[in-house]
């Protein structure tokens, strides 16, 4: 069964942050896992062309062949690597990345992003493609975010994260003229701090950009998440009942519910 409203095309969800170290990759991996539990056929694409590390997070030897797929040397089915049984298996998903530090795709920039987006949009075997974007706000990162169906910006209570997330929102809005990513707060000590963090970004965007990003949710600061990263294991497998795993699951359900046929379309947030 396809959950997608896009009539045979996968729904592209980009996850960016501006700043590095916000936990973007752990979130991308965990969301892919949680969305797969919701029954979606998910492809996780590590769109950090220079320093991909999703495979490191999952302790995978094979992370797929993104350079080969981009160079038309292989088909998508041959370029992906299955994780936890692969897409279509309950809780399993596929991954495609470039080997970390391989350098093949470095400096691919906006053109590389455009090419990859075109190819991913034709990946009919998936309900959703999750794009784990690189840190920074270069043209390639912004192109991925701008051309996806929806974009999430991850930030932490760290002030530098706020300024970088704001830069991400601002540049994305400038590039697309009307799109604003949804906010996902990571590593807040409690709900109150998460809400304050999101509100700070929302207030900044309202004042300076005349736009109001939606608050998607928060993943709390949780030693179990760090433990999963260090053990190179999936958070939802290693600590399924942890606070961070439950938060990821709740966010995945929110994303999934919006994707189901007949549900309200995702609000790609217009500047107002």
């Amino acid at each position: 069964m396809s959950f997608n409203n896009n009539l045979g095309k996968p729904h592209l969800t980009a996850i960016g942050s501006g700043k590095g170290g916000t936990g973007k990759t752990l979130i991308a991996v965990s969301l892919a896992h949680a969305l797969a539990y919701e029954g979606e056929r998910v492809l996780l694409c590590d769109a950090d062309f220079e320093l991909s590390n999703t495979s490191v997070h999952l302790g995978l030897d094979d992370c797929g062949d993104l350079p080969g797929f981009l160079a038309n040397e292989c088909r998508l089915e041959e370029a992906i690597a299955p994780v936890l049984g692969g897409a279509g298996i309950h809780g399993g998903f596929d991954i495609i990345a470039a080997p970390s530090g391989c350098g093949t795709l470095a400096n691919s920039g906006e053109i590389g992003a455009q090419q990859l987006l075109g190819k991913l949009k034709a990946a009919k075997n998936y309900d959703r493609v999750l794009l784990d974007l690189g840190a920074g706000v270069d043209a390639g990162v912004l192109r991925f975010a701008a051309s996806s169906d929806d974009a999430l910006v991850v930030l932490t209570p760290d002030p530098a994260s706020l300024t970088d997330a704001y830069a991400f929102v601002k540049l994305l809005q400038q590039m697309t003229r009307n799109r604003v990513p949804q906010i996902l707060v990571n590593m807040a000590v409690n709900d109150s701090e998460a809400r304050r963090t999101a509100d700070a970004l929302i207030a900044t965007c309202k004042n300076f950009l005349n736009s109001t990003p939606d608050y998607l949710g928060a993943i709390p600061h949780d030693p179990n998440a760090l433990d999963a990263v260090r053990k190179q294991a999936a958070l939802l497998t290693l600590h399924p009942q942890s606070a961070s795993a439950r938060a990821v699951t709740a966010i995945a359900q929110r994303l999934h519910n919006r994707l189901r046929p007949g549900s309200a379309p995702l609000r790609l947030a217009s500047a107002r």
Partner: protein
Amino acid sequence: MRLRTFLASDMREALGNVRAELGAEAVIVSSEKAKGGGVMVRAAVEETAREVLRENLAVFSEWHNAMAAPDCETHRHAGLIHRLRNGRVSEKPAARNFNRAELLQILRTHRAPDALAHALAETAEKAGLSDMTLALASALEKRMTSAALDLTKSIALLLTGPNGAGKSAVAAKIAAHARLCERHVRLIATDITGAGAIARLETFAQHIDVPIVVAESAEELSRAVAECAKENILAVIDTAGFDPRNGKARSAFAALAKIEHVEAIGVVSACSDAEEIADIAAALVSLGARRLIVTGLDISRRLGALAAAATQNAALAHVTRSPYVAGGLETLTPLSLARALIDASQSGRGSAQ
């Protein structure tokens, strides 16, 4: 965007630090109680404003070069260029010796009402002070009173004034300040006919997280104010703009101002004709406003209207120089007004400091 975090003993100090460090355009993005006491405020300012200033610099430089005559206007532009080149760092202009004709000229440049300019020049001369600023301050002191709002004690503030004076923004500023003093606040909207008036106040209310109620009649307002008074909530009442010299409108507003617990505050803009403002402020005072708030100092280069409002038979509560809620309410003393009037003619700074 520049982001700064400020730790201070209270909100008033924190906001002062925000303004000093980031300027009037700064936006408070978050505030919370700091561990161990005090407050932590995070504020941001967009770089765009400074970029625009840099772009404008070239234009003003050309303008300045084209001005050959060493008159008052030239001084103003020279001062403006100096300010643009040196960011927010301002040098205090040298003291000027008192000269009645020169003072009169300065007041005329500010478009102060003729009668007021002559009266101030005469009183300043009688003060016998050699410093022009101090002499003018002395003259102003005899005609103006400063009385800032005490938001910890006020019960209901009714903001009245002409259209476009900035009443809704002032209501939001007052509400924001009161909240920072840890006072419960309620915004009361009474302008049910103005297009988008309530929606605008609602936006402000949402932004500063203050509840809003709508009162469609004097009776409803009276009940809403009584409820606030009972619960020790500060009621900030925004009203429709009106001409206080118009007899029919006057009687309606006079009824509102007579509601128990209500203090009427006149709100006028400094960006208006000084004679008009003098008339309007006098009419508001006659309607019961004992204090005035003057808005728009950020865009008003000539301060005659401010001087006219400040010298009415009412106390000057505050002035505002920013459209942003965080820009706050400032107080203005006779000395600071005198300094603004004199310095603006020397340095091009068109607003009161």
